[in-house]
């Protein structure tokens, strides 16, 4: 990286500061151990952990994935150990390895989110909480929280109440809504410090040999470069409406150029998910490529570039 020393790559989400803006994406970095095999975890902005629930979960039956053109469907179903084991095992490993930690939480009820926040409040060394609201709300006919403005608001309110001002709250939204700006508005007014955009799109593949849905869970979440234009659009719209709210952008970022698109659209940080499956070192590669592209374009700090596509527009 040229002139890296003069370039200020740091970013922040409220009081959480990160040396660079490239994070893993929730559910795409295992427990951190697996990636630590390929690079030191402290090298990247942060590790966003897989969404953790109150209790252990087996997840959905297999097959859990189907490759699609420039993307993939997954239906993991939030398999995980539950919050207690997560705090006991995963967090200490990440801390010991110098990772900045953003913990993603997921619940089946508003209360679940409250309990998770309560358990995490006292845990030292966390940078922020990512609140994954793309989960079925068992108390409301299984409708996904993120698709319901009222439910989204309730979740954020309870997490905010439990945490006080301690940890920044980044709320992760689903693109599968009619008006993402309206949902963003709800969660911001309920106390979100930042937004994560976007979660996967609901999709399905049918196996033309068995003539049935390919995934055990029938539908799955679409990720990868295929969805990048949808992600860039969502980031652009939300940044336009709420220019002061930091956005963690994601959805198909596989190169520094892809990351730059999102930064220009308004992202203060970038999560890399599916690209890691294709390349274990993707996060590092993207971190370096993005820095070079920004320096080439004459930026001296990362933050100057955030939302630049809006600014140059008003100028030109």
């Amino acid at each position, binding site marked *: 990286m040229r002139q890296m020393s003069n370039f200020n790559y740091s970013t922040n989400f409220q009081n959480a500061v990160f040396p660079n803006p490239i994070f893993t994406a929730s559910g795409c970095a295992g427990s951190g151990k697996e990636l630590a095999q390929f690079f030191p975890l402290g090298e990247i902005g942060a590790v966003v952990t897989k969404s953790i629930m109150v209790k252990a979960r*087996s997840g959905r039956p297999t097959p859990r994935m189907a490759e699609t053109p420039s993307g993939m469907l997954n239906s993991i179903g939030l398999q995980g150990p539950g919050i207690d084991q997560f705090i006991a095992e995963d967090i200490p490993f990440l801390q010991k390895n110098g990772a900045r930690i953003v913990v993603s939480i997921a619940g089946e009820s508003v209360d679940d989110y409250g309990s998770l926040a309560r358990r995490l409040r006292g845990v030292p060394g966390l940078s922020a909480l990512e609140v994954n609201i793309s989960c079925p709300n068992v108390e409301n006919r299984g409708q996904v929280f993120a698709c319901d403005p009222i439910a989204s608001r309730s979740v954020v309110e309870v997490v905010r109440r439990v945490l006080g001002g301690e940890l920044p709250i980044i709320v992760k939204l689903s693109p599968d809504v009619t008006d993402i700006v309206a949902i963003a508005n709800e969660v911001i007014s309920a106390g979100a410090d930042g937004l994560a955009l976007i979660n996967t799109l609901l999709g399905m593949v049918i196996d033309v040999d068995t003539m049935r849905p390919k995934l055990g869970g029938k539908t799955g979440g679409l990720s990868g470069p295929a969805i990048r234009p949808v992600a860039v659009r969502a980031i652009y719209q939300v940044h336009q409406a709420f220019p002061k709210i930091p956005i963690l952008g994601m959805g198909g970022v596989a190169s520094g150029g892809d990351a730059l698109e999102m930064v220009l659209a308004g992202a203060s940080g970038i999560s890399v998910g599916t690209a890691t499956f294709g390349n274990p*070192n993707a996060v590092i590669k993207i971190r370096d490529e993005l820095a070079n592209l920004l320096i080439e374009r004459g930026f001296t700090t990362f933050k100057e570039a955030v939302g630049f596509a809006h600014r140059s527009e008003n100028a030109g």
Partner: protein
Amino acid sequence: MKINRRAQQRTVEIVSNKKVGAYHHMIFAVGDMALHALPGNFVAISVGGPGSAMVLRRAFAIYRTHDRGNYGGTLELVVAPHGQGSKWLTALPMHATVDMVGPLGTNFGIPTEPVNALLVGGGYGSAPLFGLAELLKDGGSRVDMVLGASSAGKIYAPLEGKRAVNSMTITTDDGSAGTKGQVVSVLPGLIERHNVDIIYSCGPMAMLAAIQDIAAQTGIIHQCAVEESMACGIGVCMTCVVPLRDEAGVIRMSRSCVDGPVMDGANVLWNSGGKIPAGTYGAPNV
């Protein structure tokens, strides 16, 4: 639950690519990746080149490795041109390079004492068995092998491989080579005849399940290399899980890329029929 500590990512060169029956036998110059591979391990290769719509790696069982030769360390695969990814790979010319991560996953356990081992392979599932056979023979074991496939062209059994084992039995569904039928049909006879202590297997999941039935009946140890759809191969995505009973007896949806591909057949809950088996850790209470 740990990634193979020896895994590395590197750009490797194709130094040979030959069609053998229905397969391509491919040799890659991989440097010291060759030093670290054990029978049962696999590698994950990027497919499609720049501008490809294929975002995921493809996993291939390591057929064998050589530490040093004209090309330094080499690693060999047996690849079936099946869908778009494997067709792209097998169509590559000499000296083309690919991005490879490996060695990945668990390996076949080698008994400390000589045993009577039966190695069972289905289709390209024979590939990892030849390296295993060598190791077992080196340790003084008896090695018998059974290879099955739909037809003769799909049996991968190179001459030197055949020679290295004590006996080789072939089965094909259509009878075009060896015994007509499936591998399991010949297992009971072989187990009895050779007084088999342990079965090693690699092939389609249905075959592995059927072998486990036989192993269970006869009380024989069965180590199998499973093949579940893998998105990442390195343990970060949770797509490749199989229900596996751990030492404490708890059934967990375990990743076949890090807790496998080689698993103890007796611990796998076969035939869970696309469901999470009842009693699995974290299973929904329904």
